[in-house]
C-alpha cells in the first residue's frame, strides 16, 4: 500500500496551489459578493492545462489521472468554492461524458477544445420536475429527417451561459416495458431555439454560473447523439459517479480551508487571559475537524485511485462525496463557531465556506441519493 502521491501529482498540487493562492485568492471575495463568473481565471486555468488533466493528449488533454485532477479541484476549492464548482463541472460533467461515450469525431470536434481550455461545456440533466429522480425527465428529442428536434426545460445548469456545448438529456422513445428511453445529445450553445438565462440568486457558490435553459424546437444533426441511444440513463449514472469524486474533492478543499482558518484564529485569539486554543472545548473541535478532513482525503483519493485502476468505484465515490461534503459543512460551521462573532462577519470568510459547502450536499446527487446509492450497492 502506498499513501504517497507521485512526483507528478506532487508537482501538480504545488502548481495549482501557487496559482490558486496568487491568482484566485485575491479575487475570491469579489467573486462571491458580486456573484461574478471569473472568465479570465478560467482562461488562465485552460492555458495551464487544468481543463484537460484526466484526458489523453490526442484529445487536447494532459494525460494525467483522476487522482491528479482531484488534487487540483481540492486546491482550487481550498481558496474558492465558486471557481472550484465551475471547474469541476466543466471537466467532470462538460468534458467527461464526451470522452467516455463520444465517437472519435465527437471527441475531436467537441472534447478537444474543452480539454485544451479554449471553451467551456455544461451538462443539462436537471429539470424543474426531475432532480433526484432523473428518470422523470420531460424534455423530448424527436428524430425528424436526420435531425433531433428537442423541446423542454432544464434548470440549475452550471456554466451554461459561458458554454460552447451543452450535453442535454432527453426522452427519445419508449422501451417495450413502457419506460422512457433517455438519451444524451450534444447541443451547440448557439443553436437556434436555445434560450439560456440566469434567474437565480444563490446562497453560495455565487460566482459559479448557474443557468436555466429553455429548448424550443432546437434542431441538431442526429450525429450529435452521444453514445448508445438506448443507454443514456446508464451513461449519465456513470458520468455522475466520476463527477462525485470531484465534488468530494471540492468539499475536501473547503473543509481543509475551514480547518486552517479556525486553527490559525484559535491560536491568535485570546480570551480569559489565554489563547482560546488552550481551551479543551476548542481543541476538541479542531481535533475532530482535522481527523475528518484527513479521513475525507483518504476516501476521495481512494475513489480516484479505484477509477484510475479501472476498478468498480460507484460505492466508494458515493462514500467520498457523502462524507467529504458533509465534513465540509460541519468543518465550516465549526470554523464560524471558533471565530465567535467575527466568524459571522463576511470579512473573516468562514461564513462563505459554509454557504459554499452546503451546495455540495445537494448538487450531483443529494446526500440522501448518495445513501440510496450506497444501500443499493450493499444489495438492499
Amino acid at each position, binding site marked *: 500500500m502506498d499513501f504517497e502521491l507521485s512526483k*507528478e501529482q506532487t508537482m501538480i498540487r504545488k502548481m495549482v496551489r*501557487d496559482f490558486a493562492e496568487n491568482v484566485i485568492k485575491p479575487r475570491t471575495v469579489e467573486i462571491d459578493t458580486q456573484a461574478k463568473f471569473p472568465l479570465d481565471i478560467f482562461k488562465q486555468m485552460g492555458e495551464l492545462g487544468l481543463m484537460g488533466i484526466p484526458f489523453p493528449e490526442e484529445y487536447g488533454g494532459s494525460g494525467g489521472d483522476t487522482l491528479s485532477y482531484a488534487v487540483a479541484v481540492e486546491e482550487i476549492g481550498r481558496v474558492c468554492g465558486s471557481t472550484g464548482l465551475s471547474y469541476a463541472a466543466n471537466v467532470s460533467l462538460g468534458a467527461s461524458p464526451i470522452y467516455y461515450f463520444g465517437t472519435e469525431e465527437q471527441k475531436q470536434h467537441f472534447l478537444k477544445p474543452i480539454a485544451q481550455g479554449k471553451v467551456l461545456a455544461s451538462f443539462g440533466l436537471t429539470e424543474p420536475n426531475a432532480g433526484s429522480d432523473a428518470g422523470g425527465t420531460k424534455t423530448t428529442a424527436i428524430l425528424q429527417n436526420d435531425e433531433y428536434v428537442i423541446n423542454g426545460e432544464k434548470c440549475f445548469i452550471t456554466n451554461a451561459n459561458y458554454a460552447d456545448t451543452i450535453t442535454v438529456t432527453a426522452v427519445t422513445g419508449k422501451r417495450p416495458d413502457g419506460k422512457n428511453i433517455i438519451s444524451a445529445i450534444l447541443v451547440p450553445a448557439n443553436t437556434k431555439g436555445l434560450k439560456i438565462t440566469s434567474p437565480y440568486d444563490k446562497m453560495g457558490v455565487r460566482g459559479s454560473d448557474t443557468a436555466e435553459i429553455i429548448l424550443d424546437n432546437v434542431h441538431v444533426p442526429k450525429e450529435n447523439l452521444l453514445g448508445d441511444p438506448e443507454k443514456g440513463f446508464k451513461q449519465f449514472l456513470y458520468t455522475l459517479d466520476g463527477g462525485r469524486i470531484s465534488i468530494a474533492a471540492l468539499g475536501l478543499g473547503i473543509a481543509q480551508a475551514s480547518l486552517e482558518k479556525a486553527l490559525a484564529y484559535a491560536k491568535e485569539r485570546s480570551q480569559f487571559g489565554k489563547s482560546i486554543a488552550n481551551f479543551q472545548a476548542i481543541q476538541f473541535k479542531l481535533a475532530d475537524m482535522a481527523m475528518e478532513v484527513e479521513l475525507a482525503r483518504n476516501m476521495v483519493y481512494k475513489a480516484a485511485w479505484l477509477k484510475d485502476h479501472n476498478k468498480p468505484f460507484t460505492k466508494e465515490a458515493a462514500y467520498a462525496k457523502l462524507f467529504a461534503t458533509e465534513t465540509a459543512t460541519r468543518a465550516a460551521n465549526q470554523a464560524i463557531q471558533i471565530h465567535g462573532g467575527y466568524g459571522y462577519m463576511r470579512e473573516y470568510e468562514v461564513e462563505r465556506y459554509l454557504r459554499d459547502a452546503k451546495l455540495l450536499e445537494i448538487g450531483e446527487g443529494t446526500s440522501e441519493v448518495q445513501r440510496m446509492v450506497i444501500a443499493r450497492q450493499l444489495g438492499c
Partner: protein
Amino acid sequence: MNIYVLLKKTFDTEEKIAVTNGEIDSDGVEYIINPYDEYAVEEAIKQRDAHGGEVTVVTVGDEDSEKQLRTALAMGADKAVLINTEDDLEDGDQFTTAKILEAYLEDKEADLILAGNVAIDEASGQVGPRLAERLGIACVTTITGLEIDGDLAKIDKDVEGDVEKLEVNLPLLVTCQQGLNDPRYPSLPGIMKAKKKPLEELEIDDLDLEEDDLEPKTKTVDIFLPPEKEAGRVLEGEIADQVKELVSLLRNEKKVL
C-alpha cells in the same frame, strides 16, 4: 545558445525555522526552488525561446533535489543535472559549491550561466560570482533586464534601487534579481513531459574531485535564532516629561548616550 542555470532547493518561505542541538531542523520541511533561481530558470527559457539552443539546470544537492529539478524541467528547461554530494561530503560552503560547479562547467562552453541573486537560506550571494571568477568569464550580479544581440548582452543592473546599464560580451554569468521577469507556472503538459526529459545524476567522483579538494573555507561556529522581540514600553504623561524620561533611560539604563 548554450544556457546553464544554477539552482538550489531552499526551505519553503512558509516554513518556520527551528534549531535543535545547534543545527537547523529539516525534518518534514517542504522545499521549493530558491525564489531567485526561479527568475533564472524563467529568463533562461525566454532567452532560449528567442535565440534557440538548450537550457540545462544544474544543482549541487541530494536525492531530494530531483523534485526541484523536475519542476524546472516542467517549466520548460531541456535537461537537468543533479550533482549528488550526499554520500561524499559532510559539509560544504560557497567555495565547495563553486568548485564543484567549476569542475562540471569548465568543458561545457556555456554562453550564458544564470544564477539567483542570493539563495534565501544563507543569502551569501557568493556562488555565482565565485564560479564566474573560477571560469574566467564576466559576471554581472542583480540583473533586472537582459537583452542579447549576437555576442553582446545589454543588461539592466539593480544598484540599490537605481538602474545601471551595462554592455557585456558573452560568455557571461549573471545573477537574477526580483523584477527581471514573472516566473511561469509549470503547465500540466509541462509537468507530464518533465518525467521524460533527461536528468543526469553525477557524484564528485565523476568530476574527478575528491573530498579533500572541497574542504570548506569557512567554519560554522554557532547557529541560533534571533532573540525574541521584547515587549516595548510606552511612556506616558506630558510630552516634555516623556522626552526627559526617554533621554534619562537612554543615558542611564541603555547607556547609548
